[in-house]
């Protein structure tokens, strides 16, 4: 176990950036629907 690389920070960064992009896109799409006249 001592030989396992300590690189959890990279995993945390990837696990944060993924929902930021996807939720950001989803919210942006929904705002465009509202702006275009969808209720």
């Amino acid at each position, binding site marked *: 176990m001592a030989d396992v690389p300590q690189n959890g920070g990279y995993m945390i960064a990837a696990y944060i950036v*993924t929902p930021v992009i*996807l939720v950001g896109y989803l919210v942006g799409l929904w705002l465009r629907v509202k702006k275009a006249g969808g209720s």
Partner: protein
Amino acid sequence: MAVARRGLVLSVLAMLALSGVYVLALSHTPIEARQGLAQKIFYLHVPAAWSALLAFSLVGICGALYLWLHDPRLDRFGAASAEVGVAFGAVMLTTGPIWAKPIWGTWWTWDARLTLTLFLFFLFVGYLALRAALHDPGERARFSAVVGILGLLLVPFIHLSVYLFRTLHPQPIVLKPSKPSLPPEMLRTLLVSFVVFTLLYLGLVMLRYGLALIEEAAEEARDG
């Protein structure tokens, strides 16, 4: 509006399911001995790449069908799939370097798989720019169908690039002729993530398709 609303519901449900993938990946899969925790980026990077390539492939297929059938629904679907594909492409192209840095010692290398993938991403960013620049619907649909087909031609090269060229990128471990080479817990989590990312792709495409319908209706009301 109904399509957009259904797309929103499916997307939100898929986002909630993504948190389930996080739980599976963080607590039900072993820590890989050589790569450490960074290996768990795999459960997001690979399904994001799958969704992006699925999206871009469908743009090309819809483009070819549009040139044959001239059905505007195919053009609308292609446009929706391209935009969603760019979002998944952004996930793939950010999680990839974040994974590469601790394992390869560099954020980026110009090997065949990475370079072709970046070209494909830029091609579809160009596809979206082309659509925004053209105002005649028929012309926009024809030109973007051709660009979509060109993008589709790149997809098999990207999949096979790890066999055709010397590359740092690992070879496929699931989508290959022989059995997947993964421990069962890892394979199960990866397959769940594939399903979740595919559902998210469907939800986002429905939402984007619904937006196109609303915009077209508003445009017709303005013109007519």
